[in-house]
């Protein structure tokens, strides 16, 4: 039972941080942060990374302080972790199909004997 009572000024501090981060993410969206190539066909878009990182930080602030998870028992954290872990599984394994579909070429007889070459290598 979360008997812990969070002082109002903590709430206000979290609130102001959230507003600040919202402004930040909006501002940053209009600045080109560039892209970095990895391998031959994919890039990391730093704007996307920035936006997601900021969103995760905002989420953590809400979860830990507004939702009192900082003061909650371990079972609560386990439930939250399970939810996100399962979401991660779903996204990762689905993307392992959706993004990797074009990776195998047309089978040739000799390729049965050789390892399948990946476009990157």
């Amino acid at each position, binding site marked *: 039972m979360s008997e812990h009572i969070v002082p109002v000024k903590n709430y206000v501090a979290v609130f102001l941080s959230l507003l600040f981060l919202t402004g930040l993410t909006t501002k940053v969206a209009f600045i080109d942060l560039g892209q970095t190539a990895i391998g031959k066909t994919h890039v990391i878009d730093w704007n996307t990374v920035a936006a997601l990182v900021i969103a995760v930080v905002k989420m953590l602030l809400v979860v830990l302080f507004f939702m009192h998870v900082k003061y909650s028992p371990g079972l609560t954290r386990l439930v939250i972790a399970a939810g996100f872990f399962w979401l991660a599984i*779903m996204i990762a394994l689905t993307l392992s199909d959706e993004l990797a579909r074009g990776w195998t070429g047309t089978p040739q007889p000799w390729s049965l004997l050789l390892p399948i070459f990946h476009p990157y290598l």
Partner: protein
Amino acid sequence: MSTAVADVHEVPVGSHVNYLNASYGIKSWLFTTDHKRIALLYLASITFMFFIGGTAAVLMRIHLIEPQGALVQPETYNKLFSIHGIVMVFFFLVPSIPATLGNFLVPMMIGARDLAFPKLNLLSWYVYIVGAIFTLYAIISGGVDTGWTFYTPFSSLYSQTHVIATALGVFITGFSSILTGLNFIVTIHKMRAPGMTWFRLPLFIWAMYATSVIFILGTPVVAIAMFLVGLERLLHVGIFDPAVGGDPLLFQHLFWFYSHPAVYIMILPAMGVISELVTCFAKKRIFGYSIVAFSSMAIAVISFLVWGHHMFVTGQSVYAGLIFSVLSFLVAIPSAIKVFNWTSTLYKGSISYEAPMLYALGFIGLFTMGGLTGLFLASLATDVHLSGTYFIVAHFHYIMVGGAVMGYLGGIHFWWPKITGRLYPDAWARFAALVVFVGFNLTFFPQFMLGYLGMPRRYAVYPEEFQVLNVMSSAGASILGVGYLIPLIYLIWSMRYGPAAGPNPWGARGLEWETPSPPPTENFEEIPVVTEEAYNYTGARQTLG
């Protein structure tokens, strides 16, 4: 030799106040919050749906007696197998043990007065009924022909049948499962009696907990899948239409992300029942309690990692296929471990062959066969040959019927005296169990052979050379049908005319057996304090009562 004999000193049924006679009238049932009454509401509903799904199966098997089809048009045949699958999966198997035996037993086995949220429990039943009504409406107005898998773009763009109504029915019923799972998880965490530590819980509770984890984390995703199909049909937008950039396989990922774990929703509770039956009728502690408990949790977790094995031949990335294949082999391990544990429990036990035990023994054999054949399907290469054939049909029916349904029937028989306060005639029950076993094998073993020889599934016609095996399968189905009708008759008969059962006709261990049969509404006069391990059988036959 033993037959369950009523303790002659036991007072006749109904003379003590219990949950059945505590109040009368239809309103006391429709507005109840007593988990035991809700369990019976579910029992009636899912039995009804079972016979709807079973009727579709009977019609299919009659049709397949002849290579060119003996009964219906191909379009109708498509609707029959779709209705059979949808009703049996979503409206019978998924709720079967959790909503009936789970609802009844979870509070009793842990020493609680009810579930954590009794009103949510009643709501879950009403949600189930609403979902069932939508689906029955769809069936009556002409059915659906997409298969229970609703694959796009056929279901979203081309099918001319009642897809939206059926998808809506499935969507709504999913919430019933979610509410049940939520209730079980909170109840098991927060309402165990003093002394009832996690490792003193009956393995049935572990099974219910693992099943509830799957309910919670998987069902919402199939809800989204159904929603998107409905949206696409309704608005004619191209979410899964390749012509506008949609990906039909995305639907399959969303669908199978739930539907593979769903098959573990269907089997884990049955495994929980088997642990209870095997220990009671061998009068022996379970071999390797914590291993069985952990295996249940391992199955729940790993089951979410393997769904792509339903998509090996769909054009899914071969790399994803590799990953899913390896993980599918992993998921077989905890199931196999459980089979070893049950057989080790039987070894040197004091075994008796009442009907529940016959169902349990049948389960162990048939589930093993079903599980082993799953390995052929987990291997990418052999799955290419077997996918879309009757081999798959036989595989999953060995698990779902030979496993889950037999576990369900075994559990119903085992706890029937507790639920109703009556004994059923065990001789008839054993006979029916044998009829079910014979009928089942005659129905489905030929289907392994048909599949291996290449007969495709979901086809209304087939080549002449497959007729003998098909006729065998249909003959078996008729026997199986009879096998299911017999318990319906004697169980209903026993509710009125069966002899009174004492608190513990089987001499079993567990908190539920320490209450009168039927139990009072509040389950326990005083919340018990637990000091013993589970399955504290001493090896000698217990005295009754």
